[in-house]
């Protein structure tokens, strides 16, 4: 019996799809059988992030409507065995599926996979309700900015009223240089405000744009710091105890001097 995770954020553009693709790929690299379900009907993107856009024949709605069997709609990843995509329909809308149908679909997927990761659409309307309906656990993605954190807080409340009271947090796109200057909320600030457990921190990394350009998740790139952060997150999901990477260690001469004079950050 597999576990069903929904990856959500409230606000758009904070990295839900990238996070889904990378955690899923990292879990598959660990030898797990993983399916990534794109719940963003009408605005699908998980296929392009994974580089599987040319292999789609059927989609989620075809399965629900009985136009094909589940097995026919699953797109197998080209690099990693055990990684599959169930694409969203692009020419339909969020009302083409109901929460109950989503629950049934998740039940079916859970029997066949170790992990089912659902990429939730932005917003709090029908698409969100569908995406969370069949999930056992929730991951909230945010970036350390006022609008994203505010929306994350709202989503945490809505998850609780949808039977998911203990979501875990991923802080995405942390700019270490800005944190050091005091111009970006740090990890502790963000956890302090949202009050949920931390699953991982992903530093801002140009490699994400490059890997998305190519359709190859950054976890496959050993030189990507964000890729490493996502690999760590996958290991934590598997129950391993991996500490959060130390982004803020004082290594520069100026930091050492500041500490000497007691002027550095606490």
């Amino acid at each position: 019996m597999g576990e069903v995770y929904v990856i959500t954020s409230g606000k758009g553009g904070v990295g839900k799809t990238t996070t889904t693709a990378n955690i899923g790929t990292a879990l598959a690299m660990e030898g797990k059988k993983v399916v990534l379900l794109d719940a963003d009907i009408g605005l699908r993107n998980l296929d392009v992030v994974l580089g599987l856009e040319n292999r789609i024949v059927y989609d989620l709605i075809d399965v629900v409507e009985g136009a094909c069997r589940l097995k026919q709609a699953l797109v197998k990843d080209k690099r990693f065995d055990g990684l599959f995509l169930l694409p969203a329909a692009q020419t339909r809308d969020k009302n083409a599926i109901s929460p109950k149908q989503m629950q049934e679909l998740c039940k079916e997927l859970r029997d066949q996979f170790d992990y089912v990761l659902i990429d939730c659409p932005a917003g709090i309307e029908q698409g969100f309700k569908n995406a969370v309906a069949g999930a056992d656990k929730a991951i909230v993605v945010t970036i350390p900015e006022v609008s994203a954190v505010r929306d994350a807080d709202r989503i945490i409340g809505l998850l609780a009223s949808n039977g998911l009271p203990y979501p875990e947090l991923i802080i995405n796109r942390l700019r270490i240089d800005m944190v050091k200057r005091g111009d970006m909320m740090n990890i502790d600030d963000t956890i302090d405000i949202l009050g949920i457990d931390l699953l991982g921190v992903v530093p801002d990394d140009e490699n994400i744009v490059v890997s998305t350009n190519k359709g190859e998740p950054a976890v496959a790139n050993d030189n990507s710091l964000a890729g490493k952060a996502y690999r760590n997150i996958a290991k934590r999901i598997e129950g391993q105890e991996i500490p959060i990477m130390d982004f803020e260690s004082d290594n520069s001469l100026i930091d050492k001097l500041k500490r000497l004079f007691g002027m550095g950050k606490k």
Partner: protein
Amino acid sequence: MFDFFKFFGKEESSSKNIAKERLKLVLIHDRANVSPSFLDMIKGDVMKVISDYIEFDKDEIDIRITKVRDEDSDFSSALVANIPIKRMKKIGKNPG
């Protein structure tokens, strides 16, 4: 020496502290999760209760959820009602 100016300490007003403070305030309001119709319901019931004792102008009643700072300078929510009195009713007056 690019962050030379940091030696003179601008920590207090750093933009992340402003962000944090603003977020804390806005979230108190968000989390209270009150819709205007919810406040109207409270307003209606409050009017029902006090109308036996005082006369007031229905349109001047202001009921809202607001943020207050307590002694530990933490923020908490408070229900504040501002009801201008036109006249005390007889029942409310001190006899004698």
